[in-house]
């Protein structure tokens, strides 16, 4: 019993005619990154708002925020993906639903994946933002109020700038999660990296080369993200305010 290794497969043309298998996988990585980055914009924006609202004094706003978080945290990602892709267009007025279904192929999956991943990750970001705000000493908010800042100003100038610095490391792991989670979009037809490595396995019958190449690309991406976020952490650090721990996790 033996597996016939053939690493040169990566430099052979793929059947779609777009170039070599390596090009094919790199194209997948571009889709992965495009999906993850666009979804990250939604996740960060919605997550920050929801997370901040959950720390306000209004119980109804807090309840609405909790409701949003519980809904999207307790349904598996692939089920959410299918809900957005198959169920959501059917629940809209017929005209809108048909318009959505007629979007040209890769873009329909892409928009759905971005929306789904954005919302899915926003509840995780919201949790981090809330935890970051609540980890600040209460005196910060009191001092801001005492200085005559309104609630909005207190959040804008005192609370959020500190909270975001504190939660930068967990946000880094959320960002890496969104890159990894974008692989689930392959189930709704997005030709991202994991989906393309699976396709390459089906075309070439060389599963391990295909998966090893995809794994390597994910690892490189991770290293780049970690280095980038480390740079950002150093960049935004306020000397003497919050000690950024070296290493750890």
């Amino acid at each position, binding site marked *: 019993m033996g597996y016939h290794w053939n690493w040169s497969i990566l430099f052979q043309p793929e059947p779609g005619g777009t170039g070599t298998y390596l090009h094919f996988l790199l194209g997948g990585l571009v889709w992965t990154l495009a999906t993850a980055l666009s979804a990250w914009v939604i996740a960060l924006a919605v997550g920050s708002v929801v997370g901040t609202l959950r720390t306000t004094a209004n119980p109804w706003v807090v309840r609405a925020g909790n409701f949003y978080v519980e809904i999207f945290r307790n349904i*598996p990602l692939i089920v959410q993906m299918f809900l957005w892709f198959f169920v959501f267009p059917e629940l809209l007025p017929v005209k809108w639903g048909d318009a959505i279904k007629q979007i040209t192929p890769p873009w329909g999956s892409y928009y759905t994946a971005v929306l789904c991943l954005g919302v899915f990750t926003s509840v995780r970001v919201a949790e981090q933002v809330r935890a970051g705000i609540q980890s600040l000493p209460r005196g910060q908010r009191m001092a801001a109020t005492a200085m005559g800042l309104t609630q909005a100003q207190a959040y804008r100038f005192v609370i959020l700038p500190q909270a975001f610095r504190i939660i930068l490391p967990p946000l880094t792991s959320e960002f890496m999660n969104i890159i990894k989670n974008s692989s689930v979009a392959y189930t709704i037809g997005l030709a991202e990296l994991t989906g393309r490595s699976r396709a390459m396995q089906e075309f070439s019958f060389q599963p391990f080369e295909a998966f090893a190449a995809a794994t390597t690309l994910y690892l490189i991406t991770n290293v780049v993200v970690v280095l980038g976020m480390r740079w950002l952490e150093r960049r935004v650090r306020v000397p003497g305010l919050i000690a950024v721990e070296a290493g750890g996790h």
Partner: protein
Amino acid sequence: MGGFDWEVIQRSLPYLFKTGMTFTVELTLIAMVGGIFFGTLLAMMRLSSHKYLSIPAGAYVNLMRSIPLVLVIFWFFFLVPYIGGWVTRSSSPIQVGAFASAVITFTMFEATYYCEIMRAGIQSVARGQVWSGYALGLNYWQTMGHIVLPQAFRNMVPVLLTQTIILFQDTSLVYVISATDFMGAASKIANRDYRLVEMYSFVAVVYFAISFSLSYFVKRLQVKIAVIR
């Protein structure tokens, strides 16, 4: 698409739960037990002062945690038959069913997440506990087994359970190897009867109900434990 046919859910309940949910729950429980077992071993290796133990364990954990679960599922789906063939010295890759493949995948994958939890758990036990164990003449395994690990487990129970809820949700990804878990069963019915809206809505409701109740239970447990300490 005009009318919805919600009866399809009622008609397929036995299949969805007897076949699908049983698969999901069994997979979750076996992967939880196996994952915590191997995860604890990995954590002990990572914390070991022997480089031959800590470096490979660290590399394995970091590798698994940096690639998507879907890709890991593919890896093991193709790798396990070869490893099986190698172990049994057969001339060709052996046949491995979707369930066995999923069990191995999720055990090996979740072990890395349980490992990080157990590592934090072991480190949360005061150093003096270990020293007193050695002072009493216990060896490494006795100290770990009787003193450190029981406390580490107790400290980490809520986190381990939260990870298990994530594992329960993650098992739905076995859809990609066409396994018939709860999600897979629902998708088979959905495509056969063309009832995607009904089936996927139902799947979402069921997953939500189970995960929400479990996390509520974990939250209450956490409060209880916190009061005792």
